[in-house]
C-alpha cells in the first residue's frame, strides 16, 4: 500500500485553500487520491482525512455517496454507457450487448487484462449523439454496435 505522495498532499492543500471552509475541497481531494492510488483503499482515505483534518468516517461517508469513486481495483479505462431515455430510444441496449460480448464481461466487471471496466451511466448530457458512451474522458456517439471494435482499439 503506497502512501500518498507529497505532490498529492500539496495539491490537496492547494484545493483546500481555494475555499473559505476546507471541507469543500473534499471531492476534489478524493479525486487527487484516486488518480494517484487508483483505488480509494481505506488507508488512502485515512490519509486524505489526515491531510484535511476531517474524521475518517466523514470522508468515507462522503466518498461512498458518489458514483465516480472506486473502492476496488478497476480497469485502466472506464467505459460508461448511457442507458437513459434518449439513448434507449436510439438503441443503446444493442450497443451494450455488443460491448459485453466483445469484452467478455458483465456490467460492473473488469476485463481479465485490466484494460476495461464496463458500467452504465446516468444521462451524460450528450443526447444529440445518442446512443453515446464515454471511454475515460472521451465521448463517443452515435455508437453503432459495429463500431465498437474500432473504438475499443483506441485504448491500450
Amino acid at each position, binding site marked *: 500500500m503506497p502512501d500518498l505522495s507529497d505532490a498529492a498532499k500539496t495539491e490537496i492543500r492547494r484545493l483546500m485553500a481555494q475555499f473559505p471552509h476546507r471541507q469543500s475541497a473534499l471531492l476534489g481531494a478524493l479525486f487527487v487520491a484516486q488518480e494517484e492510488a487508483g483505488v480509494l483503499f481505506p488507508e488512502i482515505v485515512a490519509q486524505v482525512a489526515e491531510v484535511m483534518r476531517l474524521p475518517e468516517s466523514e470522508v468515507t461517508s462522503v466518498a461512498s455517496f458518489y458514483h465516480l469513486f472506486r473502492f476496488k481495483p478497476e480497469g485502466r479505462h472506464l467505459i460508461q454507457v448511457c442507458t437513459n431515455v434518449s439513448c434507449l*430510444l436510439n438503441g443503446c441496449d444493442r450497443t451494450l450487448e455488443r460491448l459485453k460480448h466483445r469484452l467478455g464481461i458483465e456490467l460492473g466487471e473488469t476485463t481479465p487484462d485490466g484494460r476495461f471496466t464496463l458500467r452504465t451511466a446516468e444521462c451524460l448530457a450528450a443526447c444529440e449523439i445518442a446512443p453515446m458512451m464515454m471511454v475515460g474522458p472521451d465521448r463517443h456517439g452515435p455508437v453503432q454496435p459495429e463500431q465498437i471494435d474500432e473504438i475499443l482499439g483506441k485504448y491500450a
Partner: protein
Amino acid sequence: MPESFLLKYVHESDQGELAAYRSRGGYEGLRRALAMPPEQVTDEVEKSGLRGRGGAGFGTGRKWKFLPRDPAVTKYIVVNADEGEPGTFKDRTLLEGDPHRLIEGIVIAGYAIGAHQAFIYLRREFHRARAILERAIAQAYAEGYLGANIQGSAYQLDVVVATGAGAYIAGEETALLESLEGHRAMPRLKPPFYPAVQGLYMQPTALNNVETLCHVAWILARGQEWYRQQGAPILFSVSGHVQHPGVYELPLGTTIRTVVEAAGGMRPGRAFKACFPGGSSSAVLPEAYLDTPMDYDLTKLDVYGSMLGSAALIVMDDSTCMVEVVARTVEFYRDESCGKCTPCREGTVWITQVFDRILHGQGRMEDLDLLNGIAKGMTGTCFCPLGESVPPAIYSTLRFFRHEYEHHIRTAGCDVRAAAHA
C-alpha cells in the same frame, strides 16, 4: 424575426479565446454593468423578464433581490453547471462553445448582488468543458475581467471551479450546496434554507444556471428592451427519434410541433407518438398535445404534472414501447435517489419491481392500480423534486397509453415492438 444569439457563436472554433470573444462584442455587457449602480443592473435583469433556465423558471432579477443589500454580509454566487436532467445538454453546449459568456454573466451577477466569490459547480464528467472553462478563466484573470479592480473599477470577484463526483441529485440546488461544502449531496429543508437567505456556508447565495447567466450577459450587452423584443428565447435540447437531435434556440411559447420540426421532424416512415416536453421529470404527452406551447406559464402544458422544466424535448415515434420507456425512467430515479426520504427511496424501488414484473410477462391487471397508488403516495410527500419527478410519467402513461400496459399484462409481449420490427 428575432435573431438567434445564444447559439450564434458556439460553433466558432475560436470563441473560447478572449480576443475572439471581445472582437464579437464580448464583455460589452460587463462594461455597461460596471458603469451602473448594482441595483440598476438587477432592475435591468428583472425588467427583461428573464426566468431561470435551470428548470424552476423563477424570475432571475427577483431572486437576486431576495439577497440582503448590506455590504457587511458575505454573499456568494454559485453556478449550477451540474447538468444532468435526462435529455438536457444545452448547458454543456454553452460551456464548451461560449465559456467567456458564462464568465461575463457571473461577473455581472456578482456585481449586482455584491458578491466577491463565485463557485462553478461543474459536472465531473464534463472533461472537455472543464478544460475550456479553466483556460477561459485564466485568460479572464490575465486581462482584468476577474480578480481585483475588474476593468479599472473597485469591484473584485474571484471564481473557483469545483466538480461533482457523479450524483444526479446534486443538480437540486440545496443538494448542490451540500456537495459544494464537501458533504453527501442530500437536499436541505426549504424553508428555512432558501439559498438566497441561507445558502453556501449558510450565507446568502445567488444560485443560477449556466444558460441563465449567459442570458444575463446578453441582456446587459444589448439592453433589456432589445432582449424583450427577441421574444424570450430559450434553448431547447431536442433528442430521441427526430432527424437532427441538437440544441435549438426558439422563443418561449413555441409549440411542441414547431420544435420537433426545427429538429428536422420525424425520421422517414415514422410518426410522432409521444414526448417528454421537459426532461424525464415531466409527464408524457401524446400526439393530441403537439400544438401545446412550451412555456412556464401556460397551464395547458401542466397535464398530470407536465412542465417545461429544463426544456428538454425527448421525442418518441410509433416504434416506442411506452412501458419500457417509463420503466427505464423510474430505474434512473431509483438509482439516483439519495435515500433521505421514505417515499422516494422506497417508492422508486417498488415501482421498478412492478415494472420488472410486467415487462417479464408476470404482470397482473391489479398492478395498474398498484402503480397509480404508489405514485399517489409519492405525490407531494417527497422531500425534494427528485421523488416528485416519478409520478407524472406514471399518471400520464396510465391515462394515455393504458392499452399498452394491458397488452403486456394480457399477452406477456409487446405489440408495439413486434409491429416495429415486423
